[in-house]
């Protein structure tokens, strides 16, 4: 006969008995909030196409994660909002006009292959959104390199109100050409044409240029990054190292103006939101600086010497692979160790 249990039953646990009340879902929520400015700008410039892409990516990611966890017989993790963040980041890295079924395939790849197959959150070696983007770039090259022209909201010009005007030329394509000496050396007609294709600084900042939904507005992205640094979700190391490396490299290499290299293409969104993903970036400050530097260097090398005009995604993916080695090299020195 079981003896009577004592009336008081206290919780027995190891210290500490208190917590900072931070949580994974709170962090993910902060990231979503930080991405809202650029999402809003993307929708403003690319219209309903952007809305659909974002909606499809986010919902597919959530559903894929739920189904994967069910199939793996593990607990459901959609509550930690990481699938929402992956879906949002993937959508912001896609051209607004991408056929929705391709967006679905990419989302399933992002969560199913790049994340859950490795065991779920915390176990993936590569940034899931970027891995999916690379997969889509290789599988659906045409649609992935066809961007919408931003909607002109001013009522002055002939293009006012026109939506879905397709174009393949982004500022990056022009800037790639500018790396060759003849394009920049003198004021040849060729050089003029290339420079004309680079948007004005103002347009780069607010996002009035062709590109992926979330990468166009440098200002909106900077705002989001500032919010994340203030909330201590990310530290300044990776964005600073990445952007400074890109800037200095393009100063030395010539070609398009250095600020243009930073403010166009995926550098802003890559440096602030993609490279700073916890799971796939180094854990110490020193490691983060090396990581950011590597990303910036590889990005510019691909932009200058590679076949693609954009090198950001691949640069970050390559550095993700090197991340465990960076972690090993940059172990913190214990207090009091020799």
């Amino acid at each position: 006969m079981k003896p009577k249990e004592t009336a008081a039953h206290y919780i027995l646990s190891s210290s500490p008995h208190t917590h900072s009340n931070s949580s994974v879902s709170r962090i993910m929520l902060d990231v979503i909030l930080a991405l809202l400015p650029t999402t809003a700008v993307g929708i403003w410039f690319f219209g309903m196409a952007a809305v659909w892409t974002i909606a499809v990516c986010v919902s597919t990611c959530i559903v894929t994660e739920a189904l994967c966890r069910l199939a793996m017989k593990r607990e459901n993790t959609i509550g930690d909002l990481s699938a929402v963040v992956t879906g949002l980041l993937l959508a912001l890295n896609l051209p607004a006009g991408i056929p929705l079924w391709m967006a679905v395939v990419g989302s399933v790849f992002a969560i199913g292959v790049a994340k859950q197959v490795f065991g779920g959150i915390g176990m993936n070696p590569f940034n899931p959104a970027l891995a999916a983007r690379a997969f889509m770039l290789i599988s659906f090259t045409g649609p992935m390199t066809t961007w919408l022209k931003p909607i002109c909201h001013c009522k002055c010009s002939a293009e006012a109100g026109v939506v879905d005007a397709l174009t393949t030329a982004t500022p990056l394509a022009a800037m790639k050409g500018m790396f060759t000496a003849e394009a920049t050396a003198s004021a040849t007609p060729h050089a003029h044409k290339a420079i004309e294709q680079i948007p004005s600084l103002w347009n780069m900042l607010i996002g009035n240029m062709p590109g992926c939904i979330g990468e166009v507005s440098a200002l909106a992205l900077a705002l989001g990054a500032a919010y994340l640094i203030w909330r201590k979700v990310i530290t300044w190391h990776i964005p600073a190292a990445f952007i400074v490396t890109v800037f200095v490299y393009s100063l030395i290499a010539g070609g398009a103006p250095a600020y243009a290299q930073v403010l166009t293409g995926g550098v802003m969104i890559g440096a602030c939101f993609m490279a700073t993903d916890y799971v796939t970036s180094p854990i110490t400050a020193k490691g983060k600086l090396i990581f950011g530097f590597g990303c910036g260097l590889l990005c510019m090398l691909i932009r200058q010497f590679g076949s693609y005009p954009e090198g950001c995604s691949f640069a970050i993916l390559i550095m993700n692979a090197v991340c465990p080695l960076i972690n090993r090299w940059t172990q913190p020195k214990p207090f009091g160790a020799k």
Partner: protein
Amino acid sequence: MKTVKSPFKFSGGVHPDYNKELAREQPIERMPLPAELVISMSQHLGAPAKCLVKAGDFVKRGQVVGEKNGFISVCVRASASGKVKAVEKRLGPAGGKADAIILDTAAKPEGEQEPENGPILQPLDWKTASREDLLKRIEEAGICGMGGAGFPTSVKLNPPPGKRCEYLVLNGAECEPYLTADYRVMLEKAPRIRLGVEIMRKILGGPAVRIAIEANKPEAIKAMEAAFADIDGNVEIVVLPVLYPQGSEKHQIYATVGRIVPEPPALPIDVGCVVENVGTVAAIADAVELGEPLLERVTTVSGDAVATPKNILAPCGTKYSDLVAFCGGEKTPPAKVISGGTMMGFAVSTLEISTTKTTSGLLLLSPKRVTQYVSQACINCGRCVRACPMCLNAAEIAKAVESDDIKAAEDAHVMSCIECGACSFSCPAYRPITQFCRRAKNSIRARMAAEKAKAAAAAKK
């Protein structure tokens, strides 16, 4: 004597909710003698004392009931007069069982009533007493570190030959949430602390003195400034920034003096420093000047589940249930009872455990103040690495221990871990990282003990 700001800041650390306002304004209150005391033979670090009495014996207050058993050990004296009901194994706050004397304090021997006044030990004049006499007095008084670890004080104040104490650091940081015992001692017993410092200075050969107090205790700083105003020699009050774990020995040394204690097995004396809790210092003064051994201490009873939080002066061996009753009982049924503070204290399963020389706090927490830790996957955010005051890669250690790779944890310097809890505190995935570190440390210690035993057995052959 001057007051300075801490010149050094250690990296890492966290800011828990302190909740000290619950008990900080409560002056130290002596509680009436409980009817029963449970005096443990293991109230200190090191070998438990050897019990000298048996059931049926009558003991007098201050009588030695447990003798020092080895070099790293401390004697135990009866905290009150009474009759020994039994000597049996009782559960301690850390979960281990040790021999304890169950004392009935109401029982008196038949025959004449012996007056209980008069000092238990002969009061000494510290100015004329020799260093050896002073050390002997501290040993006889059964004084051990009252901050929590309980290291025998007479051993600490007697550095081995070749090691000199250059700095005596007084630990008045009290960085643990809820606890205000040291604060009240500094506020109310600053002159005793001053006397203790004079005595310790003589024993240690005249080191410089640094009194470390956290900035959130301005009244204590003022009280200590007043008491130490006219002291001679190199004495400074160092105001430390409010950061947990400022009270950790190694970090206190770094914050006040700027010296870094090397990894274990190195000790503070290896960098010329001795750190002592302010309560211990006051106890030294009482032992020498008044002949009063260490028989009682101030314990903060706090938490949102206790009716009236108080700072209670209670004899060692007082049951937790008696402490709680003196505070007006439970306001709500507690979900957790903690011996110590919330960051490093021990959760206990019953209030029948009794206080020891190192019990600085007793917390009763309601369900909403309790966090459940569940081991979710590590997201590599690095908050634990940034929080660790020992600059360890806490995330890697936790992951290694989770996959039973104790060797990898050892390579990541887990033996330097001070188990402060800053890592678990800051983890957004609610991983019990501190518990992982403890598991690795226990496993490594067990392995080292087995190796030592094997080597000893082989050497004998």
